């Protein structure tokens, strides 16, 4: 309660008593001009007025790349090039980060049948910029300027810092695209030897036991031929480990294998490549093979088909280091492989953590000072961490790397509108 109110009250009371007819207080004339963006024209665009001249400017994007269309009228007359008044229209847009596009307009179509002034060039997404339109008509130039922002948000520096919003610069880089596949290890047929006696006979001496390492050409047994009764030696055909022995002194060596020697210096990973990956996997590609605790880089030597199975086998040699007892690779083992199917230097790439979905686009958010704005991207190849940018971003742009979700959340919460 205040004095003023009491006075008003008393005044009103007296007024009521004296039965005053309340007079017209007079219409307050609206002096201020409405913000241009607030008024929609008949074509759904922004309606700009200055005295008797009016301009409607719209972004049209149904069925065509986004373009500017304009309708001009002066003194109630629709202006086309055929009317007496010549009109020159220019629109200038300044995007976040200072990029400027200028559009000049030419008349398109027939005034009777929905003709319009058409801006030259495509209005690239996002449609977020400060617009300045200048229209010269009847010797007078009208100027309008307004903001038309979308997908833009301002966050104070200290808050962004506290919220963990970190940026990075968009730059060229190397994309290493990989596929993963599983497969099992087999020993190569050249590394496995089943040794038999040349002539049947009695085994007179056995020099090696299961698990022994043998060198190539090493004598591993002696047999007395049953026919010639001569003794002959059996040599190890390859170096390796004796994995089976079916021979003891005094036994008969007939057609059965006496020893098996396996060489583990080199084993083969047979990776199963399923149809979807088939097109991308080629021999010569670099592969990282991993199992349990070990990892080795190698490359695909061959790709061989299988009989019935739907996949093909990519064969990758793996090497066990000589003398290393642990021999990490052994036949029968299941391994996981990362195949580098493509490695390419790209002119521009961004970290995958920066990507967010926005409407139908995949976007990153660029940062200019305390402003952040969407940049819809056209993306190319990608690997586990980075993705190539084909268009939508410039090298050197500072984009939000960490906590980009916060920016998306902030833009979407303010009910971003797509203004045309």
């Amino acid at each position: 309660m205040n004095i003023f109110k009491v006075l008003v009250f008393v005044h009103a009371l007296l007024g009521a008593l004296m039965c005053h007819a309340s007079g017209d207080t007079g219409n307050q004339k609206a002096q201020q001009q409405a913000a241009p963006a607030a008024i929609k024209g008949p074509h759904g665009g922004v309606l700009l007025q200055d005295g008797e001249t009016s301009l409607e400017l719209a972004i049209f994007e149904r069925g065509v790349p986004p373009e500017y269309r304009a309708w001009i009228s002066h003194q109630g007359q629709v202006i086309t090039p055929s009317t007496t008044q010549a009109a020159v229209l220019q629109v200038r847009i300044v995007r976040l980060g200072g990029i400027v596009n200028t559009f000049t307009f030419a008349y398109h179509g027939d005034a009777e049948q929905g003709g319009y002034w058409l801006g030259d060039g495509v209005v690239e997404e996002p449609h977020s910029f400060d617009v300045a339109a200048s229209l010269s008509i009847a010797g007078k130039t009208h100027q309008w300027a307004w903001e038309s922002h979308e997908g833009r948000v301002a966050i104070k520096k200290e808050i962004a810092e506290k919220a963990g919003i970190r940026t990075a610069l968009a730059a060229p880089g190397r994309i290493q695209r990989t596929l993963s596949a599983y497969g099992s290890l087999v020993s190569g047929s050249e590394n496995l030897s089943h040794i038999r006696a040349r002539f049947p006979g009695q085994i007179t001496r056995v020099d090696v036991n299961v698990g022994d390492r043998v060198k190539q050409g090493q004598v591993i047994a002696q047999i007395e031929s049953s026919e010639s009764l001569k003794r002959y030696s059996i040599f190890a055909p390859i170096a390796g480990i004796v994995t089976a022995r079916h021979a003891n002194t005094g036994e008969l060596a007939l057609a059965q294998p006496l020893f098996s020697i396996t060489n583990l210096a080199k084993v083969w990973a047979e990776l199963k490549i399923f149809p979807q990956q088939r097109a991308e996997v080629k021999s010569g590609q670099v592969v990282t093979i991993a199992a349990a605790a070990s990892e080795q880089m190698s490359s695909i030597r061959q790709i061989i088909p299988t009989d019935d199975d739907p996949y093909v086998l990519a064969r990758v040699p793996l090497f066990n280091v000589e003398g290393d007892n642990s021999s990490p690779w052994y036949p029968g083992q299941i391994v996981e492989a990362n195949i580098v199917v493509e490695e390419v230097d790209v002119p521009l790439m961004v970290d995958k953590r920066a990507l967010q979905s926005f409407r139908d686009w995949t976007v990153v958010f660029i940062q200019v000072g305390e402003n952040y704005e969407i940049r819809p991207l056209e993306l190319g190849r990608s690997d586990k961490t980075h993705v190539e940018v084909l268009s939508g971003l410039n090298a050197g742009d500072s984009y939000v790397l960490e906590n980009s979700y916060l920016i998306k959340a902030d833009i979407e919460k303010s009910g971003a509108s797509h203004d045309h």
Partner: protein
Amino acid sequence: MIESILRFSIERRWLVLSFILVLIGGGVWSYQHLPIDAVPDITNVQVQVNTEAPGYSPLESEQRITYPVETALAGLPNLAYTRSISRYGLSQVTVVFEEGTDIYFARNLINGRLGAIKSTLPAGLEPEMGPISTGLGEIFMYTIEALPGAIQADGKAYDATALREIQDWIIKPQLALVPGVIEINTIGGYTKQYHVTPSPQLMLTFGVTLGDISEALRDNNSNRGAGYIEANGRQLLVRSPGQLQSLSDIENVVIKTIDAAPVTIADVGEVAIGKELRTGAATRDGRETVLGTAMMLVGENSREVSLAVALKLEGVRASLPEGIKVDTVYDRTTLVDKAIATVQKNLIEGALLVVVVLFLLLGNVRAALITAAIIPLAMLATISGMVQMGVSANLMSLGALDFGLIVDGAVIIVENAIRRLAEAQAKNGKLALKQRLELVFDATNEVIRPSLFGVIIITVVYIPLFSLTGVEGKMFHPMAATVVMALLSALVLSLTVVPAAVAVFMSGQVREKESLLIVATKSLYKPLLILAMKLRWLVLSAAIGLVFFSAWLATTLGSEFIPNLNEGDIALHALRIPGTGLEQAVAMQTLLEERVKAFPQVEKVFAKIGTAEVATDPMPPNVADNFVMLKPRSEWPDPSQTQGELVAEMEAAVKLLPGNNYEFTQPIQMRFNELISGVRTDLGIKVFGDDLEQLLKSAEAILDVVETIDGAADGKVEQVSGLPMLSVIPQRMTLARYGLSVRALQDTVATAIGGESVGLVFEGDRRFELVVRLPETLRRDVDSLGDLPVPLPNGGYVPLSEVAVIELAPAPNQISRENGKRRVVVTANVRGRDLGSFIGDVKQRINEEIELPPGYWLDYGGTFKQMESASKRLSIVVPITLAIILGLLIMAFSSVKDAAIIFTGVPLALTGGVIALWLRDMPLSISSGVGFIALSGVAVLNGLVMLAFIRQLWHEQGDLYLSIIDGAMIRLRPVLMTALVASLGFVPMALNTGTGAEVQRPLATVVIGGIVSSTLLTLFVLPILYRMAHGRDVKRG
């Protein structure tokens, strides 16, 4: 009859007085059984049926659970409507019953129906009814934290899982035992689980599948009893324990053997204590915490229950491990105590003021005391009545009690009695007992009718309040009931106890000192009255002008429908975009809470994000309920700052934080809103139909139309989509080529990502789920989900991407249904235009412009419906009430003319109320409406007393003019007294700034303002009107 009651009361005065003792006894007993809360309970009769469906997406939970449950519950007796939401992992069907349905009866019905459909629901899913509680149920909240440096028995620091275990197994079982507590609801932390996380590669190596692992764990985890053996006279029980008891037990479970070599769980993966896939989190002061909420059984005394919980919690502290702190963050007792203190203060101050006024104006201590004694007696009787009627004591029900009004009847009687006694004593000296009793009877009888009628009329005017329904009804019925009970008990007391007490206690010399005040007023009043009678046309036109002026003024006042009770704490919803993950929400919450905590007024801030264990309030993870507990005002930097200002300041500060939208409210209010959960905008257009996309399309088309209509504001379509969903779509042809079924594929995906529960691990009494799922690093890697090997029936594997298409696309966020049909709501408010014509326009435009496909239909709702129905009802009830009052007046005077004269008092009384509201910048509201109601009663009462006397004098003396002047002079004192006590009784309320002031201030302001104008009217305008009305009679006679 009245005479015989009076005679009885005076003759058997001691007997009547001894009834007071009975009254006191009954009142005191009732007081101890009176349910006390801060605010009235406005929850409707509802039962929530929650079905937890881990892993179900909104579409699945609607199709498989919500629909069968809803269908089963359709057609229950007394059913008002059902509504449901289907979200990730939860289906909630809310069944709302007609008012007055017994909740236990309703739950019984539902239980029966649910039992019948259990077999049609997916295996393992159990629909459960929510706790038997209301919006007032969340009475006590506490957080559990570990002090820095505290370590667990195994030497590790306490993490969120360990804290949750303490809550689940130590605190909760003890608190759940407190009488009146129906549920301890937990949110935050992680329920402890045992996790087996096999590596895909190792599984391939050993040729085992996720299915093999699950089966092995299921088959190797049970105890078995095997009866008993009797041997040598002893009875030996036999059992075979086989339960898994530790991590290493689990690791050693054999999955299969390869060439006699056992393959154990440890061979293919890791076993560890893991985190559940939780649906909710809790934070406090920027850190994650575990939050427990005690929920009160419906109808309990919230103050008592929360006190008991607090006491029990003290006891629980002793049983907690070293270094664990349990902190009470919300305790309803605080609020209730504050509310009670407010009511007490108001009532006591009001009562004191009344006593002082009585004493000053009557100038007789005994008389004043007799009148004042009505106050506690009526109060006790009212309390007894409240207990009997089941009305709880709260700010609303006690908020409108005015002792001034209550004693009005008694004042008139006592005043007349001492005037007559004094007169008689002045004439005859000391009176004999018989004479005195006779005189008391006469004096009482003289005024009993007008005062009886007056009080009955005041009571009658409260009747329209009973016609309010819904939330308004729930808020104002208790208020009306309490006032009516207080008035009726005062009425009975003035009929019995007052005459008896006057007869007993006014035995000695009655000196009626007209206090100076009265003498002065009288000497001022007489010339003014005579002047007014001369200038009657001027006075009348002034009065009429005033009425019109204030009628116009009333239209300029804003209006608000329901008052907001200030709870002294702030609650705010932090809303993020749909699809925000829990971890992200917690991170955003941290930032928000740190900012809020930085306010010096804030004592603590805590929040619930997402859905708690018992889904009493199913929120998605992108919504957080923040509770901001404020320090006592004295500790604020500026104690005079209002809460509204603080909220505005806070809103401005948190607006700067990225990614959040806010809705400010208060804890209890928030809960009410969640439970009632209707459309809270002026207009809600519900589109019903089958196809979600079509619904959304139609809704958007409707919004476009609505937005172009003049006056529309805040137009919105309900947020139903926008949940990012990763769909693994089986490719049937390729699956067939590999010999896989869709189900086999889905099983693999579900187990790998969501996990499969394969049993329980017992630790003593505690039991924890044993879950098989992929290691966290693999689960989170969306890009390589396609590489997940799916085992083939004949051994071998195929990558997931080979047999399924993996798609990331937005999907329905939640599916809402009402009365068994999908619906999407379009909401809008109306600004600067009257609601009725706006709604008309909307309906017309939508009819013309929107074409709905067959099978789709619209329903209009929103608060406009309630306002419409309320005003429709009031437009019937108010005239009826006025007719009743008029009827009563005619009965009292047997004269339509006199009744009409008195009735003119009502508009003039209202003028004062309107002006008082305007002076104090208050809007019209139901609260002020109640004030107007009380006011009309007082106005009529005053007029009644005045006119009755004038009429009597006129009949006795025969001179109209003199009778009017004399009568008015004699009635000046009682009129002033009733006016003064009634308005002074409200003064503390009008000035109140404490808890509950929002309701009481407008009411009290209206009454005080109105009484001033109504008294002026009674003193000046009524005599004029009476003379004008009867002048002709005189001439004719």
